[in-house]
């Protein structure tokens, strides 16, 4: 059990190779029989039938990057929690459950402090100023 046996990972490698074979094989098989008539119009990006304006690789909504940043923090913290969780039952059986419980609580407290901070800063809202702007009434047919 305790010795490192890399044979256990053999199926993983086999499955990854199989995935590459399935993808490559079906594409290769297709390349033998499928038609190939490229033209300029066919190879432009789809933009509802209009010619595409500019490139899609432009500045993009910052919201997605904030989400990614929050994710990194939580993901690392949850990855660090796996080992503690895995040994918790065994520690509990030999009477050391309280120690681990306290360490889990401390750790989760820091995690919760992080999420509360993000929440208060409004980083969990999709549109940050959504609640601060007064709702505007639709004013059809009125002059303002």
């Amino acid at each position, binding site marked *: 059990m305790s010795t490192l046996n890399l044979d256990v990972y053999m199926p993983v490698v086999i499955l990854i190779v199989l995935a590459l074979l399935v993808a490559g094989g*079906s594409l290769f098989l297709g390349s033998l029989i499928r038609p190939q008539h490229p033209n300029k119009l066919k190879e432009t990006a789809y933009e509802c039938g209009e010619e595409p304006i500019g490139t899609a690789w432009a500045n993009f909504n910052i919201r997605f990057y904030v989400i990614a940043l929050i994710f990194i923090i939580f993901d690392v913290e949850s990855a660090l929690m796996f080992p503690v969780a895995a040994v918790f039952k065994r520690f509990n059986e030999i009477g050391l459950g309280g120690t681990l419980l306290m360490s*889990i609580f401390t750790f989760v407290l820091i995690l919760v402090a992080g999420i509360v901070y993000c929440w208060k800063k409004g980083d969990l809202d999709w549109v940050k100023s959504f609640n601060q702007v007064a709702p505007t009434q639709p004013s059809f047919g009125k002059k303002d």
Partner: protein
Amino acid sequence: MNSTVVSYLSQSNEFQNIHAWLSKALGFDASSLMAFVIFAIVALIIVGVMATIGGAGTYAERKISADLQARVGPNRVGPFGLLQFLADGVKMILKEDIITTNADKFVFNLAPVMCLVGVFATLAVVPYSSGFILADLNVGIFYLVGMASLVGVGVFLGGYASNSKWSLLGGMRGASQIISYEIPATITIISIVLLAGGLSMKTLIGAQGGGMQDWFILHNPFAFIGFFVYFISALAETNRAPFDLPEAESELVSGYHTEYTGMKFGLFALAEYIEVFVVCGVAVALFLGGYNVPFDLGTGALFSKSLGLDSMLSQNIGQLLQLGAFFTKTLALYYVVIWVRWTLPRLRVDQLMTLCWKYLTPIAIFNLLGCAVWMYAFDGKSIFALIMAATAGGGAHH
């Protein structure tokens, strides 16, 4: 090598005979070679079965949606339209492969392969039965969570590399959604790991039993809520409706795979349908007792004792029962996933993020603490064990 399909087969006499003969013929210990051959064959079988389930999934999806909307659904190809997915596969192979001029060609081709690799790699640890498991890694569920996130990378790269605005929007949404919902899913998985006391799939399932009272979903109230948190997060992680914003056909054309044609699109679809099966399998393994069969029928000891069958034969019967239990539960969940898709409307992107970060994540953290306290306070007993002990009186206190 412990408790995989190879160690299960190595109990039989035939395996021992072939092993001895091969070792003599080759002049070295052939156990690794035989393990490789068996792994390769079983991996091929599993991939074949999964591709069929993925294909049948597309058929089931159309039939069930037709049923829910009082239509007939596919009924032209083969009896009841059963061969529809084969026709679709042939069609996809025959379609012209178009790569847009401005796309990043290398990444464009890499993205669907990445999705497929991520999903296939998770298949290694899915526990079909106690003997029929490819790799019982000691980090099982951790490995699965890690490999499954490769799909998110594939979705994002696919959207980015297309250099189309629809694709970029879909890819960005997909990436943010998949990584966001990974948090509640992972924290819920951690709370189940707390209950089971191990990361390997066999430990997780071994800690449960065949009867419903031994399943983790009914272990304590926190795990019960945890199942729904995990299931909702899993739906979002696999981009299934009502969380199908990355492909949202009515607003983003087809999202991250707008520019993909033919088989490359097919690979995305195949990966998605197999991933749905995998997350359903994980939900079954974590919460619904996995491959456990009631009354310990899975070990086959009963058959050899009461019916006088050969021990290997009775073990095989037990394995078949376990496979049946696992697939029945998983396919039932699969049906629920499809059912949900055709019942609930799609969320808006801000609602999606609110649901994840303001509801599911705090609930998941609360469940984690609740499970930890429960384990500590009640010595890891389930709620049923506590009720039994309470009704039995003072006998439980020793």
